């Protein structure tokens, strides 16, 4: 193991140890943060319910992810390719970005009900603009020299998009996926916490109203696991893109 790796592992172990020991020593009140072992105990005890909530949450995340990232990256590409559309729409989009979209969630519940639809709609909307702006930044950073070279080599407009713009924007698309994915997870969990009848966020809120701290943290452990999984998948994708070669 490299020294860096050793220090990283030591850091993780230290955080977990602090989580376990500080509440036990009474330095942190147990109601605020219960020891790690109690959170894991609550998770093991209520595993049927916690694991049962995952399909709902995962489903919402996947659909919102597809809408936000697919749509966001596509919109970023289109805006990137069209200066006229960019000039017209970008000021509007930037101001919309500044609105705390969570104020719209009650409206979404009215429109889409208490089920997964309102969570999907909220999370997709929440992640859409940042995803699009990230993708757009990558397209805008495309070197004009490469485009001109392709033109001199006789590339048609379609070929310029296919062989130059798309591969050149692949890394920024992955960056957009990373940001969009993280925001979709936040959006779904927050929406579930604010008003739902199922899902991980709903469980966390329910345990909180019952002052069941270990139960709340059991849910948090699962949320951490989901974001960790997303991170691992994205890293793999990034490695693929770094070695990306069209032929």
């Amino acid at each position, binding site marked *: 193991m490299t020294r860096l790796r050793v220090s990283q592992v030591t850091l993780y172990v230290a955080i977990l140890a602090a989580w376990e020991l500080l509440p036990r020593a009474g330095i942190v009140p147990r109601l605020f943060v219960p020891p790690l072992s109690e959170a894991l105990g609550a998770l093991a005890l209520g595993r049927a319910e916690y694991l049962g909530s995952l399909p709902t949450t995962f489903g919402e995340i996947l659909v919102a992810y597809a809408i936000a990232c697919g749509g966001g990256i596509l919109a970023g590409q289109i805006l990137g390719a069209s200066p006229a559309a960019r000039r017209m729409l970008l000021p509007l989009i930037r101001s919309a970005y500044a609105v705390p979209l969570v104020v719209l969630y009650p409206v979404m519940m009215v429109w889409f009900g208490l089920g997964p639809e309102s969570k999907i709609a909220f999370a997709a909307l929440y992640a859409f603009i940042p995803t699009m702006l990230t993708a757009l930044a990558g397209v805008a950073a495309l070197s004009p*020299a*490469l485009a*001109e*070279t392709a*033109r*001199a*080599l*006789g*590339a*048609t407009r379609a*070929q310029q998009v296919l*062989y*130059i713009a798309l*591969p*050149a924007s*692949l890394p920024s698309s992955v960056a957009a996926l990373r940001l969009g994915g993280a925001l979709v997870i936040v959006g779904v969990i927050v929406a579930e916490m604010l008003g739902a009848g199922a899902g991980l966020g709903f469980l966390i809120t329910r345990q909180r109203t019952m002052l069941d701290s270990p139960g709340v943290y059991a849910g948090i452990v699962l949320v951490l696991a989901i974001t960790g999984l997303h991170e691992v998948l994205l890293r793999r994708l990034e490695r693929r893109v770094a070695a*990306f*070669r*069209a*032929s």
Partner: protein
Amino acid sequence: MLALDGIDLEVPDSQFVAVVGPSGCGKSTLLSIVAGLRLPSSGTVLCDGEAMTAPMPRKVGMVFQEANLLPWLSALDNVAFPIKLRRVARRERLEAARRMLELTGLTGAEDRLPHQLSGGMKQRVAIARGLVQNPGVLLMDEPFASLDEQTRMVLGDELLRIWSETKKTVLFVTHSLNEAVYLADRVIVLSARPGRVVDDVAVDLPRPRTFAMTSSERFGILKDRIWQHIRNAERR
């Protein structure tokens, strides 16, 4: 703003023509008009009697100051890229690209990505890419300007070798008077903006050119004649 004015130039087959002039005189603009990348506000460019109103990569190859290789493609795939655009079958285009890499002295570097190549090797790949469609004309826009002195000299000799093997017509824009006189049959001198042809110098040094010629009297006279024009233009 007028960049070029009254340019009337005829280049016979297989001639190596260098274009020099003070900075900002429109040398690069001239080249991109010849390439069909830009349209002139008036006048025409003819190549084999056909008007160049759009890039015609099969007739005119182009090499830029920066190699502008696609960073995600290997050297071989970069060279094959122009014929891929024309949907030449994969085997055929890789074979053509391999021949061009051999011509430019890059055998063994086929699979390297651009970031694994030195500046000089990148320009060799760019030259190979410019030649892969076997165009009659090769346009070069200060292709060696971002290379160090030694690499530039080596690549100059390499270019002359490739030129004598392939008999292309070359239009070579450069800042370097040495390079212009050393490489070309003929040096076109442009004035300051708007660029006009102020001199058309026939370089009567024998071929093959050698490094020793760069210190010959004749070389000095030719260079001096061009320098006078440029200095006058820069003064104004």
